[in-house]
């Protein structure tokens, strides 16, 4: 049990139905693991399982030495499309502040340090120009930046991100890449689902999924023509 996120012969699914079986990996603190695969290949299901939202079907999985969902203050999760309700036109800055709730719990008061973290996260993701505007008035990319800032404000030791760059413009992708790099330097392990093979090339570990585990290992081991053909039906990523 050395790594930050460790799985051994893990099967993930929902409602008793298995989506992917036989997943094993060991991601170190500060490491980056990318989940690659088509829509419906099991990436989101695996991330939800790591976040404690879905129970594992069978097998072992540990985050920071404990079961999923047991250390909310240390594990941040960002859904593919966060299911935000828009009945209340809540401001972007307030959405980011909700990232601190895992630390504050029911009764702790938000301290200057909490507010500073939120401010920094807002700046890092370039949310400042629209921080005071209601989330529902923002574009998809601006909403995604807001939710990424919320995830950063958690100051977690493990970040689980489901297609974090979806909807981001090139500038947004750049600030996101810088933020992930900074989080990793701090020792935070990052697991993210992505469709961008360029992201995966810089990762420590890559899992290639296609409703089954096609390959797992370093980018050089996993991103081979044969593997890509097996999961996507094509090879040329460039």
């Amino acid at each position, binding site marked *: 049990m050395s790594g930050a996120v460790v799985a051994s012969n893990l099967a993930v699914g929902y409602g008793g139905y298995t989506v992917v079986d036989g997943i094993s990996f060991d991601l170190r603190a500060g490491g980056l693991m990318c989940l690659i695969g088509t829509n419906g290949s099991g990436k989101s299901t695996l991330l939800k399982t790591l976040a404690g*939202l879905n129970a594992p079907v069978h097998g072992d999985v540990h985050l920071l030495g404990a079961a999923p*969902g047991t250390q909310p203050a240390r594990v941040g999760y960002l859904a593919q499309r966060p299911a935000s309700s828009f009945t*209340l036109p809540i401001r972007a800055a307030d959405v980011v502040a909700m990232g601190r709730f895992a630390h*504050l719990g*029911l009764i702790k008061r938000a301290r200057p340090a909490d507010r500073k973290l939120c401010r920094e996260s807002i700046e890092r993701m370039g949310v400042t120009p629209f921080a005071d*505007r209601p989330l529902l008035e923002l574009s998809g990319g601006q909403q995604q930046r807001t939710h990424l800032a919320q995830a950063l404000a958690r100051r977690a030791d493990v970040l689980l991100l489901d297609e974090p760059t979806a909807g981001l413009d090139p500038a947004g992708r750049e600030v996101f890449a810088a933020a992930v790099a900074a989080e990793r330097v701090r020792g935070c392990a990052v697991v993210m689902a992505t469709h961008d093979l360029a992201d995966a090339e810089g990762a420590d570990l890559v899992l290639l999924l296609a409703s089954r585990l096609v390959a797992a290992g370093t980018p050089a081991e996993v991103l081979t023509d044969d593997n890509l053909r097996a999961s996507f039906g094509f090879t040329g990523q460039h």
Partner: protein
Amino acid sequence: MSDFLISPFADNAFLHRALLAGVLVALACAVVGTFVVLRGLAFVADALAHGVLPGIASAVLLGLPTILGAAVGTAVMMGGVSVITRRSRLSSDTAIGLLFAGMLALGVMITSKSRSFTGDLTRILFGDVLGVDRLDLLWQLIAVVLVGAIAWLCRRPFLLLCVEPELATTSGFQVRRYESLLLLIVAIAIISSFQSVGTLLVFGMLLAPASTAALVTRRMGAMMAMAALIGSASTYAGLLLSYHADLAAGASIVAVAVAIFLLVFAGVEVWAAMRGSVRVTDAGHHRHHDHGHGQVHA
């Protein structure tokens, strides 16, 4: 002018008490209604409001305190909905609808055993805000304090449940526990308010002021404060209307609250149309709600 606006309350103790009762209803319903509107609990709240009917009717028949009957009725309704939803494949609105109809029918059946059937039924459904006594006011005050305390203590999980339910779980809050607590404060607000505005009209006080506030505020606390103001103003205006025009008091209060919603809704629409007629947004992210901040998106 003061003869028209203030004297009715200064000269008539019953109207004075009615105003106090109405304001207490407005306070409890502002807090609870905010969650009902944001979390989409309108149907559950409606069902709870009717679930109390057989309880109250039995209490009236047996000569027990009605508030006790209301509490039992609500508990049966909440328990029933949760059991049917969890144990069957039926969706929660089906379970709620079923019990809602059943409890309403049972309530009317029990009431029909009473000698003053129509009078009792009318009082239960539409309330008797002019007949509120000091003890009723005390119960209402306790309910307002209790609802306020629970809402304040659980403000973070409640906000997450309303805005981003998944984040509630991943932030370490047990969703089922806070959902139950949310239903509990809905029940407390209904039980404490039915005496004044009745089981049918309490629903209007839960929804109208909070919905109006949702049109013009951006934060949950502000929404509650504005809902409380609107609810209190509706109580005052409704009682005045009822006094001068000789109309049913509870119904007048709720009618004013709904009228305020319609006015504010129209105002917001007109304001938006005047501020910015062209709204350009990123493809796929245009939403039709405007909330009056009409802005042109680039």
